[in-house]
Structures are given as structure tokens and as C-alpha cells.
């Protein structure tokens, strides 16, 4: 979904801008020589007085593209907030009835609804919620009456802690294995790496999680389960608690990044300029570092960012399996009791992470393109 779109997006935009730029000047040139003959065609608004933005695009397409990305991300986040709010509104079931259970008299339900402000129209509630969210205030949980922001603060910290360790293990490992697979292309090492990573990506994460629990926690007893962490825990204790969920996440994201790295480097290694480098008598290391790597960066960045986003957002299942007190579990708990402020807040934060990481990837990929850094 968003992932596929975001990997293609920068290329499309780049082609669009790089392609239209010289054409604009050509069109303007021919127009000048032909006088006002073609002023009545569809092109006339492109010529003559360029808007300040148009001039800016021509002068520094890189900055323009980055600004575009930023604006697009903000717009996207806004659209997502509407979708989250609308989606939650459309959910069947009602907090008041769920909360009161057997004692749900119409009067009691109405009272609670009034208490929570549910009697106001949806648009009013949306703008109240959005206004608060912009200031970091997501309201109070309906179930526990605690501040959602405070709760999320702790939970998000836990989730990021888990994602961080999964990332610092999986990213270097994936890129390293990808390079190794390139080095030993089509030989045993490459094939073994490929088969294992493919198996890991093919198994659903809850299955991998339970397998790990079965072997390491139940049969061998070397790992901690459940992976619950407390505020009072020391770092080493925490690390041992998250060992299994981290391993699950690493296994799940590793294959994707590894295979993309392998493909990107292989693609570049078969290019004519790498052959040129070889025919210059350069060393293997210099060829990879100076001639191949800069051109393989963009696709690798994209897939890394996508997987980072997954590590933060996609941990819901893993957190539930390992009973880890992160955002994912918080959200799942809230959904079961129809605690809407929590669901909305979690959804919005997940979306913000996803959009932010993809935006960073897009911008890095744009910056890595010499055609955009150094326009004609």
C-alpha cells in the first residue's frame, strides 16, 4: 500500500521535474522566435512570466522537491487524521453500552455519552481532537480516565526501545549479508542466505514468535517469557526480556532488506561504469566503495526506511504474542473496550511515524541523485 507507492513516487516526481525543465526552456525559446502565434495554445501559461514558485523550481529543483515532499507529508498526515477519525466513528459498537454492560439503561447511556462529549456533532469533536493532538494532548482515556499522552509516552518509549534494537541488529546484518551474497553470487553461501531469509519472511511473525518461545523459553529455558518490562528494570534485565521479540522482528525484516541490497548492488555491478572502473585497473574495494555504492544507495535507503517503519508500526502482533507493554498492545487493548481516544491517538502516531520515515527515505533518495543535485 503506502510502501509500494512511496518507493515509486520519488522516481516519478524526479522524472517529471527533470523532464519538464529543459522542455520548458525549449518551448519558451521557440515561442519567442514565432512571436505571438502560439499564444493561444495550451502552453501559454507555462511561458513568459513564470510564477515565483516556477522560478524557484528551475533554479534549485532539489530544494523545490524537498519542500514538495514536506508539504505532501503534512497533507497526507492531515488526510490520515480524517480517515482515522472517520473510521473510528464508523466502527460498530458503543463505549457506553460496552462499559455499562448489563446495567445499560437508556438514561445511564445518555449520561455517559454526555459526559464524554459524544452528544456533540462529529465535526466539532474532530476539530477539538485535532486541535488537542497538534498540541500533544490526546485527551483522556475513557476507560481509565488517565491522560492518553502520558500513557502513550511510556508505551511509545517501550516500542521504540524494541524497534531500535531490532533495527541496529537487522540493518547492518541485512546489508552485510546482501554484500556477502553479491560477493559469492550463485555459489553456496548466496544460496544458503537466500533460502534461510526466504523461509524467515514466508513464516508469519506470530508463528516465528511462538516457535522461538517453544524452543528458547520452554524447552531450553534460556530466554525470558513473557517479555514484560517495568519501570524499575535495569538495562540488562530489559535487554534479556526483549531478546525473543527482537529476534522475531529481526527475522521478519531481514530478508526483505537483504534481498533488496543484493539486487541493488548486483544491478549496479553489471553496469558499464563498473566495467570501466575495472578496466582502469582499480582495486575491487575501490570499485565497490566508490563506483558501485553511491549508485546503489537510493533503493537500499528506501527499503531500509520501509522496514524501520514496519518495526515501529508493525509490532502490534509481536507485542501481543510476547505480552510486551508497547504501543501495539496498548492499541489492541483499547480496541477491545472501544476506548476511542486511545485508538485514535495510537493510529495517528503510527501513521506519523510511517509517513515521516518514508519522507526521509524519499528525501535521501532525491539527495543521492546527482541529476537533481546538479541540474544542467
Amino acid at each position: 500500500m503506502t510502501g509500494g507507492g512511496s518507493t515509486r513516487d520519488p522516481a516519478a516526481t524526479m522524472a517529471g521535474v527533470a523532464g519538464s525543465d529543459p522542455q520548458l526552456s525549449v518551448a519558451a525559446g521557440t515561442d519567442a522566435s514565432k512571436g505571438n502565434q502560439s499564444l493561444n495554445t495550451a502552453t501559454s501559461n507555462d511561458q513568459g512570466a513564470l510564477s515565483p514558485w516556477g522560478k524557484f523550481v528551475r533554479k534549485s529543483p532539489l530544494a523545490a522537491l524537498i519542500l514538495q515532499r514536506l508539504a505532501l507529508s503534512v497533507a497526507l498526515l492531515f488526510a490520515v487524521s480524517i480517515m482515522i477519525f472517520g473510521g473510528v466513528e464508523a466502527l460498530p459498537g458503543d463505549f457506553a453500552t460496552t462499559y455499562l454492560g448489563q446495567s445499560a439503561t437508556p438514561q445511564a447511556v445518555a449520561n455517559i455519552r454526555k459526559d464524554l462529549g459524544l452528544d456533540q456533532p462529529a465535526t466539532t469533536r474532530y476539530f477539538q481532537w485535532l486541535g488537542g493532538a497538534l498540541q500533544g494532548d490526546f485527551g483522556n482515556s475513557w476507560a481509565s480516565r488517565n491522560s492518553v499522552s502520558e500513557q502513550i509516552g511510556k508505551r511509545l518509549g517501550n516500542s521504540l526501545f524494541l524497534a531500535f534494537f531490532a533495527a541496529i541488529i537487522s540493518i547492518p546484518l541485512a546489508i552485510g549479508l546482501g554484500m556477502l551474497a553479491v560477493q559469492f553470487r550463485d555459489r553456496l553461501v548466496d544460496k544458503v542466505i537466500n533460502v534461510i531469509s526466504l523461509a524467515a519472511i514466508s513464516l508469519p511473525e506470530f508463528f516465528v514468535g511462538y516457535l522461538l518461545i517453544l524452543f528458547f523459553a520452554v524447552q531450553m529455558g534460556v530466554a525470558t517469557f513473557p517479555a514484560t518490562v517495568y519501570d524499575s528494570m535495569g538495562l540488562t534485565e530489559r535487554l534479556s526480556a526483549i531478546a525473543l521479540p527482537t529476534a522475531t522482528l529481526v527475522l521478519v525484516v531481514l530478508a526483505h532488506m537483504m534481498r533488496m541490497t543484493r539486487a541493488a548492488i548486483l544491478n549496479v555491478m553489471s553496469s558499464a561504469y563498473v566495467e570501466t572502473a575495472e578496466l582502469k585497473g582499480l582495486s575491487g574495494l575501490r570499485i565497490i566503495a566508490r563506483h558501485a555504492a553511491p549508485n546503489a544507495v537510493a533503493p537500499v535507503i528506501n527499503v531500509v526506511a520501509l522496514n524501520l517503519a514496519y518495526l515501529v508500526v508493525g509490532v502490534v502482533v509481536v507485542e501481543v504474542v510476547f505480552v510486551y507493554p508497547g504501543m501495539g498492545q496498548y492499541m489492541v487493548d483499547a480496541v477491545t473496550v472501544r476506548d476511542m481516544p486511545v485508538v485514535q491517538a495510537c493510529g495517528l502516531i503510527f501513521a506519523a511515524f510511517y509517513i515521516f520515515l518514508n519522507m526521509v527515505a524519499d528525501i535521501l533518495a532525491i539527495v543521492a541523485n546527482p541529476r537533481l543535485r546538479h541540474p544542467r
Partner: protein
Amino acid sequence: MPEPSKTALLSVRNLKIEATSYPPGEAPKTVTLVEGVNFDVQKGKVLGLIGESGAGKSTIGLTALAYGRGGVRITGGEVTLNGQDLLKLDHAGIRKVRGAKVCYVAQSAAAAFNPAHRLGEQVIEATLKHGIMSRAEAEKRALYLFRVLGLPNPETFGERYPHQVSGGQLQRAMTAMALCPNPELIVFDEPTTALDVTTQIDVLAAIKHAIEETHTAAIYITHDLAVVAQITDDILVLRHGKMVEYGTVKQIIEAPTQDYTRALVNVRGTGRDEAADQSDTLLKVDNVTAGYANGFKVLHNVSLHLPKGQTLAVVGESGSGKSTLARVITGLLPPQEGTVTFDGKPLPRALKGRKNEELRRIQMIYQMADTAMNPRQTVRNIIGRPLTFYFGLHGKQKTERVRELLDQIEMGDRFLDRFPAELSGGQKQRVAIARALAARPELILCDEPTSALDPLVAEGILKLLLKLQEETQVSYMFITHDIAIVRAIADSVAVMHRGKLVRFGPKSKVLSPPFDDYTDLLLKSVPEMEIGWLEKVLTTRRMESAGN
């Protein structure tokens, strides 16, 4: 086995090159690509390697760097550079030769330069890494070479990135990159093949000048004998990886001893006179302006016409709008202004508005026959499809007609059930022609159908097209950048430059003086199979510019 020459710079003896092929469903096979090749390159001299594709030219050229491209192995013989056999060196030893003593200029400089680094850095990289010069010296030499090669703004040229300069400039920058470490030998692998004729002549002159200036020896690989005649001292003619003829330029061009060489020298012998009566108009393009949705115009007010049963050649370099004109006529790109009239009736502007009958009468053949055919269909289906589509033929009738068409293109029915991958380049183009003919068209738009083919094969295709025209009275609009083809087959000629029609009329008029500036440049840029032609053209140019 002959001994390697003691005096030559590079001496190749009894060269054998093999590769492993993996035919689907069979055991891997070892294929011999090159066998029994011997030649010498003397200091400061240029050897031309010439032959059609698959002759092993590039493969042999790369042995001077002890390099095999994509699984190609040098399995026998000696490649001696200054008395040292390169094939006996270890990897570190070979690295010291590559980029220092022997350098390489690739066919497509646009692909051979790394897009991520500045040109100047790439030009001096090998020189620095081999410790041949200090950075300051290398930069000074690069500047000198940029000047010798006639690059614009040589002082700042090195600061640019590959995408910021033109194809012709990149090719010259690549030559500078090869010359920079002061090598003893440079291998030029078709350095001008991908360029327009008018650009080719400049690059050719620049390369020749640079070689003379620096006294570097070179191996110059090309399939164009006329090009090689301008620049080399000796020529080695290759075919199927074997030597056909080896001699001086003078001997090969003026007195070839082998039939194959003679055919290559006389390849531009096809030809015919233009039709006298050019009044019976089939296609009329009237004041057409066309372009793309973003407002960029490719064609400006183009008007021309094509008589029945005749050939109109449309010439111009890449970007001149030739192919766009064909797209307008087919309806793929509706014109913004102007009309296209076919057989007296105006054609609907867009493809969607045309009836099957209107579609049938105009067919097309393309430059790349292999991308224009479905690789999963047999020849029978490829040629049969228009028979079903336009005439509703099925079964026996259809097969009968396909056989007839195969006969017409001189191929025969043993090709009926072959896939495109099982055909040679020339055969694929013939099948594409048969597919166009199957619709019994009155006009075939030919978009550079021979420019991807070897000269002898291309000549066969041209002869076939002429024969078919005589038999079926079909008209051709033949798009090309090759003046020799125009001379050979056209009745009328349209010269295009930057989307405008600069000259149009019967062949005899268009190709004879007085010329406009562009046609003059175009005609003078086409290499002729004559030793010293390049010097002559350059001298006239210099005199003209001095006269101005």
C-alpha cells in the same frame, strides 16, 4: 605457431577465446568465439578491427586488457605487450596494465561514465591510482587533453557531471580519460557508432588529432569500413571469430583479396534512379504541427507528400522529429494543427477514430524487430494475426497465405514454427516486413529498419524492400539517418532538422547543389570509403570558416 613479433608494441598470436553457453534443457556447452587470430600493433600506429556483430571484434579488442566480458575466457594463444605475455600475469599484474599502459574507450560513453562523480575526477582517476602523476600534473594533462579534443570551456569542463554534457562531448571526454595516463595503447570500441553523423565526424576528427598529437598506438573497432578508412594504418577483417583478411588500409580498400572484404567494400552498391512521374499522390501531410501534452512541440508546420508506389526518405539526426512524423501519420500522436490526407480522403486525427480498413492500408516496421514482436509467438502466429484481423482468414487458408508471405520475404516455410529468439537479426526484420505485408497495405512506414543491422544484412533487407515494391506497388516512407540508404532507394527526400522540414523534393534535386546549410553539413558528414576523406572535409571546413 608463429613467434610474437619482437618489434611490435602489441603482438597477438594464435588467440583462442571461449565461453560457456547454457541452452535451455541441455547440458552447458563450450562455444569457441575466436580462433587462430594473429596481429601486431606497432608503436604509434592504429589497427582497425572490422566485421559484423558476432565477429568477435570487441572480444578481441578487450584481450589487450586481458579482460573477458561476462564469462568469456581467453583460453589459448599469446597477447604480448612490450615482450610481456599479459595472459601469464596474475590479477595484480593485470591491474597494473589496465588503465595505465592500455586504456579502453567504450561504445556508449553515456553508460561508461559513473553518474555519481564529476567528469574531471573520473578522467584523472586511473592516472592517480596508478601513481603515474601527481594530482596537479594529472589535472594539467586533463586540461590539455580537453583542449586537444576541442571540448567547450576546457577549464571548467571537468567540474561537470556526465548528465550535464552531450553525447558527443562524453565520447570525447572518454577519449581524454583513456589518454590521460599516457598509455602505450588505447582500444576504441565503436566510439562513434551511437552518435549522429554530424557529431560523429567531429568526434572522429578529435580522436584522430589526439592520437597523432600524443603518438599513442590504438586498436579501433567498428563495423563501418568507411570510418576505419579515415583513421587507421592497418585493417584486420574478422568474421565468425576468424581472420578474413589482414593488410594495410590501402590494400584492403583498394585491392581486397577476399570475397567477404570485397562485399564489405562494395556494400553501398545498391541503388536505383528516382521515378520520373511523382504526381499521383497517395499520402499528403499538410502543415502539421504536433507535440506533447506539456506544450513541447516536436514538429513545426511540416508539409510533404508521397506518390503511389514510390519511396519517400525522411532524413535527419536524432531529435529531428522523423519518428514523430510517422506517429502522426499512424494516428498514435494526433496533430495539434494540420491534416493528413490518404488517397484523397482526410484521415481521422487519432487512432481511435480510424476504421479497420483505414488501419489496414498503413502498416509499420520498426528499428528493433525483436522488441516489436511477441517473443512467445511463433512466426506462423505473428504473420497470421493480421490475416485473421483484417481478412478473417483461418486454418488452411491462413497457413497457405503465411507460406506465400514467407516465400515473398525469401525465407521459406521451415521457419513457420520458430520463435523470434530462434531467428537472426535480419530474419526477424524480414518477419516484421511479412507481418506488415500481410495486411496488403498501400503504405508502409519504415522507421530505421536497417540501422540496427550489419551492413551486408541491411543491404539484403533494402533489396527485399525494393523487390516487394516492384511486386506489390506499395509505397514506403523510409525514416533513416543514413544518406547512403537515401541515395539507394528514395524517389523523393525530406530533410528534417529540429522539427522543421528544411528541404523536400525529388531525390535528384534535394541531393544536388545549391544546398542549404544543414543539408550541406549532413551530406558532408557521411564518411566515404576513401582514404583521406576526413582530411579533405576538415580542410574545406577550415577554409570555409577562414573565408567567413
